[in-house]
């Protein structure tokens, strides 16, 4: 017996570790769970471990001070050995974790694995989802650049809409009544201590429940869950046909996890971490705070909700979604599990994915925002380089029309495309609309003098399909 083996045997004799962990690792699982369909939960766990490792590494250098964090991030990215890759992995690891949590949840919902006796598996998962989302947000804030500062303000304003407690919640998020020295320290404490501690607790609980209740077997249509007999049936099936989790089922988790981690590493090396924006100066107003991709759908939702009911949607929308997810296993914890027999579940997933994708796509173009960087109309588009037509075109550029309206491909998307407006509205109608505004357009009656107005109307009237 060589030395290493003797040491291990001594260690195991004194600690009893193999006796404690071995049976858990080798516990029998239903044979139809050892498939590639069951790898997303473990992959989420692997990305979490990557986040812990890369996060701790970043904390070796990062300075959680409102005045200095930005410089320390620049230093991490450009000066330190491997700093760029570690920051990249932490960023793309967060993306991967959100994505995998989403897939894991959809899959659990579609196969109704939340039904008896796994209600608490689902509920602890919902808590983990919420914690992961908070990690995503606070993570974007501790990347302390201009977008981070304005995102914090936007978050505080949303919290401000909560009835009665609004102002307190807003001040709680800002760490005072304005952005400043206290803001980042607090965000750092949430992101690095508080939420990760809760994540450890709930991940432990979640995994304990997976062992306690057993991995749910892949559902078969016509084999409903009956709480009275389910446990007996499950245990008998596992006893008869079960295979050891380690390594018969777990090797697929390891293979998929390996691919996920290597992909994150590759993206971190090739693409690197996200570019830092301008410094976190709240007096620099040339900012357009757009969140990271996984929150862009919510950003679009905030822009598109009807203003009359937006306070309710903003405050009670997320609460309602959370409550529904939380209550799901109490709404139905028995009966069919197969998606083939649960068309509504499939429809809800399809609808949710379609809504989020739609919001996401529209969030990227942000047609509701004035486009401050729109290219001005050229003499070629205007069709003149002097005279009223030219002056009208220049007014279109200078008076703000361009930021919201497009002509011949130049301009914003907020208002209607005016490339052929001359075919739709008469000179009188144009004048009236410009003066008074309406339909979400400001009136320009107080801005334009008579000359400017008549030039602009002449220019717009000339926009016709030839």
């Amino acid at each position, binding site marked *: 017996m060589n030395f290493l083996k003797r040491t291990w045997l001594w260690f195991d004799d004194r600690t009893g570790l193999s006796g404690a962990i071995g049976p858990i690792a080798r516990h029998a699982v239903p044979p139809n769970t050892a498939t590639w369909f069951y790898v997303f939960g473990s992959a989420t766990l692997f990305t979490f471990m990557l986040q812990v490792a890369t996060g701790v590494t970043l904390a070796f250098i990062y300075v959680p001070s*409102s*005045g*200095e964090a*930005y410089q320390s991030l620049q230093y991490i990215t450009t000066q330190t050995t491997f700093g760029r890759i570690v920051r990249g992995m932490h960023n793309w690891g967060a993306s991967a974790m959100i994505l995998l949590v989403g897939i894991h949840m959809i899959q659990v919902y579609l196969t109704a694995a939340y039904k008896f006796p796994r209600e608490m598996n689902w509920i602890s998962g919902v808590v983990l989802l919420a914690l992961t989302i908070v990690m995503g947000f606070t993570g974007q804030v501790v990347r302390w650049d201009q977008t981070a500062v*304005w995102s914090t*303000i*936007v978050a*505080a*304003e*949303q919290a*401000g*809409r*909560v*009835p009665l407690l*609004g*102002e307190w919640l807003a*001040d*709680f998020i*800002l760490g*005072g*009544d*304005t*952005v*400043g*020295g*206290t*803001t980042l320290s*607090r965000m750092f404490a949430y992101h690095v201590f508080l939420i990760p501690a809760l994540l450890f607790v709930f991940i432990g609980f979640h995994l304990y429940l997976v062992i306690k209740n057993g991995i749910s077997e892949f559902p078969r249509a016509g084999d409903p869950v009956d709480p009275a007999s389910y446990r007996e049936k499950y245990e008998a099936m596992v006893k008869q046909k079960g295979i050891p989790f380690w390594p018969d089922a777990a090797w697929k988790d390891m293979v998929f996890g390996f691919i996920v981690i290597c992909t994150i590493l590759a993206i971190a090396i090739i693409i690197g971490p996200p570019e830092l924006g301008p*410094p*976190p*100066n*709240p*007096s*620099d*107003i*040339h*900012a*357009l*705070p757009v969140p990271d991709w996984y929150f862009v759908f919510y950003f679009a939702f*905030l*822009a598109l*909700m009807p*203003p009359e009911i*937006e*306070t309710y949607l903003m405050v009670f929308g997320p609460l309602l979604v959370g409550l529904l997810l939380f209550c799901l296993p109490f709404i139905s914890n028995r009966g069919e599990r197969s998606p083939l027999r649960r068309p509504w579940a499939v429809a809800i997933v399809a609808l949710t994915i379609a809504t989020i994708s739609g919001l996401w796509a529209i969030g990227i173009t942000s047609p*509701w*925002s*004035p486009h401050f960087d729109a290219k001005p109309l050229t003499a070629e588009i205007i069709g003149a380089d002097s005279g009223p037509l030219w002056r009208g075109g220049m007014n279109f550029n*200078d*008076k*703000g*029309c361009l*930021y919201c309206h497009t002509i011949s491909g130049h301009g914003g998307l*907020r208002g209607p495309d005016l490339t052929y407006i001359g075919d739709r509205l008469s000179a009188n109608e144009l004048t009236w609309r410009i003066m008074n505004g309406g339909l*979400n357009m*400001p*009136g*320009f009656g*107080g*801005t334009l003098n008579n000359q400017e107005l008549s030039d602009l109307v002449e220019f717009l009237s000339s926009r016709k399909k030839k």
Partner: protein
Amino acid sequence: MSEKTGTGDCTRRQFFMHVSIALGSIAAVLVGIPIVGSILAPIIKKPKPEWRVVGTVDGFKVGGDYVKVDYVNTSPLPWAGVTAQSAAWLRRESEDKFIAFSVNCAHLGCPVRWIEGAKLFMCPCHGGVYYEDGSVAAGPPPRGLYQYPVRVNNGQVEILASPIPITTV
């Protein structure tokens, strides 16, 4: 322990249990008061608004455009760096009358820009638009831009550095 625990014995056991739980709870509450109090302090303790000089009266043209003025916020901490900066849109309306608006959109707080040619404030986030008097011209904002107090003091224009305005219901 013997199966035949007398009533006295059982009471004794319950007594230990209750004492242990009570001691733990009391310790948690005692420690919790300063901890929770410290974490919640920023929402209870409000800094006093302070006047900040943003320029000389002569530096602003009568009836001119809105100018963005920067100043230090209400509670600058030594390590706040650039985050201690705050800004407002300021305009000299007449000889001795100034008007100042918050740069924060009343919708969700994004920074509004003054568009000189259009005489409008526009928000890049969700398309809020305001007229030059701060009233809503278009988009989702539920109210006009927040106004900040301005005063002229010894030839200096001063703005009352105030909290970020939070639109509540």
